[in-house]
């Protein structure tokens, strides 16, 4: 079982343009590893490097100290779910990865149905539909199901939250935290606030240098400077007096409320 993926001085290029320079960082098990950054900062490209699709890079990717061999060990859910589809039905699409692993059709069907269900797609309703004739969010769910059904050691997800409804987001969070115990889960997202609780590390990509941060550090930096990462106004306002604390709450109403109340009580006691 893989424990850690490490980036050693990774420099990624497109032709003559350097996109990521001397990137260091690591991704481990038992947590969701987040990657955030502005549009065009190279998040999708980084996932393509890890998946072995983008080869213009120097430096190395190590898996528990050895050079990482992506082929066969990863799944990558592309930012555009449609780019993943090449079968005629939803059933074949989820079943593909299992078929590749030499499972028989009889073994595949129940597992495939179960995974569709897990990702919130009703198998009875869409089993024989064409993947391109699903709604946007249903396509995303199908892509995620197809990429996780075979339980690869490393799971790379590019913007998995885009297009998911509230229930889909909850399913995603619980499924990924479950998978993270045995797999390395790396998630690129523009909504890190939804996954901060489950995440242990966050890689922040930026043209002027990349940072590897703990979720709390990330929140503190974002509060100090909204151009670092714009947190919602209500949150900034709610915790404005405690922006330096080391245990900033996640962006959930009850967490923030409880945090602010305890702090205010502590403050009142001190006076």
């Amino acid at each position, binding site marked *: 079982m893989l424990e850690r993926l490490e980036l050693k001085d990774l420099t990624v290029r497109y032709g003559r343009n350097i996109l990521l320079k001397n990137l260091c960082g690591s991704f481990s098990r038992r947590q969701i590893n987040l990657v955030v950054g502005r549009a065009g900062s190279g998040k999708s490209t980084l996932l393509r490097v890890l998946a072995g*699709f983008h080869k213009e890079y120097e430096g190395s990717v190590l898996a528990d100290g050895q050079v990482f061999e992506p082929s066969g060990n990863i799944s990558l859910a592309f930012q555009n779910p449609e780019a*993943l589809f090449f079968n*005629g039905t939803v059933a074949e699409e989820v079943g593909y990865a299992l078929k590749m692993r030499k499972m028989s059709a009889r073994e595949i069907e129940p597992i495939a149905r179960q995974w569709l269900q897990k990702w919130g797609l009703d198998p009875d309703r869409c089993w024989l539909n*064409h993947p*391109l004739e699903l709604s946007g969010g249903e396509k995303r769910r199908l892509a995620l199901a197809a990429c996780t059904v075979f339980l690869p050691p490393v799971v790379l997800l590019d913007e998995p939250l885009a297009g998911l409804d509230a229930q889909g987001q909850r399913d995603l969070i619980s499924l990924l935290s479950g998978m993270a115990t045995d797999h390395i889960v790396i998630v690129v997202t523009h909504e890190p606030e939804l996954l901060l609780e489950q995440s242990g590390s966050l890689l922040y990509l930026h043209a002027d240098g990349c940072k590897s941060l703990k979720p709390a550090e990330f929140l503190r930096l974002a509060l100090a400077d909204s151009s670092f990462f714009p947190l919602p106004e209500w949150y900034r306002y709610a915790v404005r007096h405690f922006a330096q604390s080391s245990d900033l709450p996640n962006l959930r109403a009850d967490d923030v409320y409880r945090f602010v109340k305890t702090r205010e009580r502590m403050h009142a006691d001190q006076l």
Partner: protein
Amino acid sequence: MQISYKPGNGLLYSLNPMIKGAIAFSAIVFFSLNTLGLVAMTAITAVMLLVSRLSGVELGDIFMSVRRILLLLAIVGLIQGFGAEGFSLVDACAAMIRILGVFLVAGVYVTVSSQSELTFFWEACFRPLGLIGFPAREFALVMVIAVRFFPVILGEIDRIRMAQVARGAKLDGGGLLASAAALMPLMIPTLTQAIIRAGELAIAMEARGYRVSAQRTRYQRFRFGIVDLFAILIPVMLLAYLLRPFFYTAG
């Protein structure tokens, strides 16, 4: 690595789209019909590549996609190579360079021509047909969609390979033939998908006000420069050379 338009400012880029199109098509006809012999053909190909390189075309991408037709090249080489006196390497190479030439011309042409230049060229070519009642604009629409999909469909095999690897398939498919065989069952779904996608693109164009019957204006302005005046000699000369047997018989 797809062959598709890459913006640039070099010589080939600056040609008028009509001239560009005329050169490309006469060169394709020239390469596919001509039998100048191996040495001359190789020289012409080399000159063409040199001019492209000097115009700032990244030949790397084009060479990379030559891989996709390697199998075809080998088969053609084999078939053409066997003559009355057994296998002739020169004949085989001559046959291969013809196909390679066509492929390279098409590749360079697509790389230096933007979408609107291609549309412009086709619409202009079909316009005379419109006079005799041929649905020229409808045809141009089909061409626009086809051009948009040319790189997509060329890249489709790569995309599917990538989608498979993205779901844990191993990259080493065991050579070209094996991987081609593995893709066979996917032919029909791929075709269906391409049709759905093309339909979606047509809808997207319609949603932005594209109507086949409507009068459009053009954003890019295509000038006819001094270079074009010289460049026009290339298709004229190529065509004259190709049509030379007819002049002889006439004279």
